[in-house]
């Protein structure tokens, strides 16, 4: 069923003008990032929302939800202790109605909300939270489940009177609270934690306290969830405090990128993730909607540097490449209006973000100067060389991002002008298999969830970004995690960004993480700071 053509045109026009019709928005949990116009009106009760993810998955275990395919669905199945409100830029209560810490940031106390139950009837109390925190912090040996990387400081927790849980850490960690808002810290029923590995990985067996409950599945094709009518514990300030408007949520898969815009436009799905920039305008002008969900919880998209080959051992060379990239041209040629070019390794809306856009401005003359200073001089073919070696570098990345390959194709051209040859192996998953752990491959193009701050992403010796532990950086990370005041914490997060992006230039930043969704004309949905659709507050009009 299609809405009248005139309405379509009007919506498309308004969308094109960037006007927002979201009269239903404005509350805490709403994300400010939805770009296209959503028709106004009161939420409609009932109906089934069909959502298409990119690829089917077979491991739904909570800690392993570091991929969008999992997190986007589990977000509506599992509640967390806290919730990050991107609009206010702060953490609010969810299953924890209140949370406090000692000054040293080594002890945190959570007050658990009363009246919350898992979908199997078990009460979600302090005891159940402790069982979950132990699983997150220590892993579950019998089920071969490893600890959550963002909980690496976790030591123990105990149940206190008044439905409270007190967590003790091995070392100070100012990011601990933020980590409890991640989907990877989703709370499951104590019964789920007792299952074996296969059991905890099966979506049919995972029991949560979230707004949607597993109903049925066809392996690799479809998962159906039904709404929980008695759900009444949405995050503080959520647009919809209670049960979902929808009756049912159906997850399907569209691995073929070419079908996504058509699927949303024709209404075969109400929402689809992974729209290509070229399809955005097509979908909008066809009466569909385009939503750009900003990944505030993630690092920006970046090419992190591995210095193993020696080509990029000199910081000057890395700095030359950093300013030898024309990010605006990248946005104009390869990306779309849904994308924001990076000004740091953190997203513009992430707490502590420092704007380095002036320092990162395209400056090929400065690039050449830096390369000259580093001793790399132009060779006969225009590619710089030093001691008989050419300045040739390679980038590896997965094919998860729809824009990463063309982006590096453009960067390849830009760097050729300053005399650097880039071998573009982006979106080559086979190459990535070995390149991911090979420090001879100079760049790894990616973005990472950063709930535990930048420390867990760039710190460990086997971190997949740089495959190297930088002592000065790690010292900075340790001090940041031990910060006792908000002000000091933010200041140190700023220093980390300066070190990573400018002084050491260990990561070349590209664009803020964003997930572009396509939607059918009547779909109303907001997104979390981790780009997950909030199905609990979603509804459909005109059906």
């Amino acid at each position, binding site marked *: 069923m299609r809405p009248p053509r005139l309405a379509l045109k009007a919506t498309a026009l308004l969308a094109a003008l960037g006007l927002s019709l979201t009269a239903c928005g404005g509350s805490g949990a709403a994300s400010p990032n939805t770009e296209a116009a959503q028709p106004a009106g009161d939420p409609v009760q009932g109906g089934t929302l069909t959502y298409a993810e990119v690829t*089917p998955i077979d491991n739904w275990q909570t800690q392993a939800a570091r991929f969008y395919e999992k997190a986007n669905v589990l977000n509506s199945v599992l509640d967390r202790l806290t919730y990050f409100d991107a609009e206010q830029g702060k953490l609010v209560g969810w299953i924890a109605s209140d949370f406090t810490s000692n000054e040293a940031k080594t002890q945190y106390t959570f007050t658990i909300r009363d009246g919350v139950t898992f979908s199997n009837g078990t009460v979600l109390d302090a005891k159940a939270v402790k069982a979950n925190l132990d699983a997150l912090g220590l892993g579950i040996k019998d089920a071969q489940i490893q600890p959550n990387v963002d909980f690496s400081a976790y030591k123990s927790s105990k149940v206190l009177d008044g439905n409270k849980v007190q967590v003790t850490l091995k070392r100070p960690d100012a990011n601990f609270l933020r980590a409890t808002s991640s989907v990877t810290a989703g709370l499951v029923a104590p019964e789920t934690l007792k299952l074996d590995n*296969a*059991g905890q990985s099966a979506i049919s067996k995972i029991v949560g306290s979230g707004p949607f409950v597993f109903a049925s599945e066809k*392996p*690799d094709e479809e998962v159906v969830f039904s709404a929980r009518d008695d759900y009444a514990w949405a995050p503080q300030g959520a647009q919809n405090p209670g049960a979902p408007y929808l009756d049912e949520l159906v997850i399907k898969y569209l*691995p*073929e990128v070419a079908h996504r815009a058509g699927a949303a436009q024709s209404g075969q*799905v109400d929402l689809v993730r992974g729209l290509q920039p070229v399809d955005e305008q097509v979908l909008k002008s066809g009466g569909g909607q385009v939503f750009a969900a900003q990944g505030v919880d993630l690092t920006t998209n970046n090419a992190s540097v591995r210095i193993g080959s020696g080509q990029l051992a000199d910081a000057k060379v890395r700095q030359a490449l950093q300013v030898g990239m024309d990010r605006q041209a990248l946005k104009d040629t390869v990306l779309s209006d849904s994308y924001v070019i990076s000004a740091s390794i953190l997203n513009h809306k992430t707490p502590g973000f420092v704007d380095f856009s002036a320092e990162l401005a395209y400056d090929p003359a400065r690039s050449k100067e830096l390369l000259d200073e580093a001793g790399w001089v132009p060779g006969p073919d225009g590619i710089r060389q030093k001691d008989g070696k050419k300045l040739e570098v390679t980038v590896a990345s997965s094919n998860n991002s729809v824009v990463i390959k063309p982006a590096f194709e453009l960067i390849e051209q830009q760097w050729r002008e300053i005399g650097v040859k880039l071998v573009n192996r982006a979106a080559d998953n086979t190459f990535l298999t070995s390149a991911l752990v090979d420090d001879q491959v100079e760049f790894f193009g990616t973005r990472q969830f950063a709930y535990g701050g930048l420390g867990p992403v760039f710190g460990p010796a*086997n971190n997949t970004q740089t495959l190297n532990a930088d002592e000065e950086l790690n010292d900075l990370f340790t001090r940041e995690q031990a910060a006792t005041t908000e002000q000091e914490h933010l200041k140190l997060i700023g220093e980390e960004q300066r070190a990573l992006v400018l002084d050491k230039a260990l990561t070349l930043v590209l664009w803020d993480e964003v997930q572009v969704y396509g939607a059918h004309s009547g779909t109303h949905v907001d997104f979390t700071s981790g780009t997950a659709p909030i199905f609990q507050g979603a509804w459909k009009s005109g059906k």
Partner: protein
Amino acid sequence: MGGYIAKRVGQALLVIWLAYTAVFLAVQALPNDPVTIFLSTDAAADPATIAQLKAHYGYDQPLITQYLGQLGALLRGDLGYSLSSGAPVAARIGEVIGSTLVLAGSAFVLAVLLAVALVAAATLARGERLRRALLNLPPLFISIPVFWLGLVLLQLLAVQLGVMSLFPDGSALSLLVPILVLALHLSAPIAQVLLKSVQQVSAQPFVDVLRAKGAGESWIFYRHTLKNAAPAALSIAGITIGTLLAGSVITETVFARAGLGQLVLQAVTVQDIPLVQGLVLLTAATFTVVNLLVDLIHPQLDPRIITAHAGSARALAA
């Protein structure tokens, strides 16, 4: 006959064992063990966890123990555990194999029917133009990429006309269209070999004799030519099983269907090596079994194979 069968079955078992060994050695040649590779896709895997997982799945054992242990398990139908889902590889394959069997099996049958129909029409066609047009169809079918045809048909039928779903919704069209896409591609080599073979047989003197005796063209074709030309097409049909599996990966992705093809893609993407290993073995076994069947059917079509040297069976057919 008994000796021929025993020999062929023995050879098939040998091939499967060699395939197992080759896959095992290939895994050893990887830069790391399966657990480390699987966990390296994570931000930073904890070395203690890696060690514990390796011990749990037996990857810390000496190579010969792993080799014999996995081989023994294989004989019991146990393909190990998928690192991603934690479920047995055999169970994971069992979940989706039905979908692929329906798709690939139907596509194969349709491809053979299409090929025979095409060759019959081309041979019996009266007009030279029609005959030429029909003869050019197989090269056309093989030049159209499976993914392209699938995309175009879906764009047309599902998005533009809205008569079918982009997803496998159980409707007749959502099954028939992928089957047709796969079958068209598959029918081309079968048709081409059958056609060549039919032309060769038609040139033989016995056909002239039949004609001189007053037999009709279609009677000659169906009763004599086709029967004599069939072994060659059967051989090529056996080999196309490989194409069929590769085609399934693409077809399943384009049509968002569950199946072995999708599973291979998933397993490779998350670097779940035991699952990949199981799927490669299954593919090798399928290929071997189908070719074994072809070898066993051959003598029924051409009894000379039993009396001639066994190794020349394919040469004779070609």
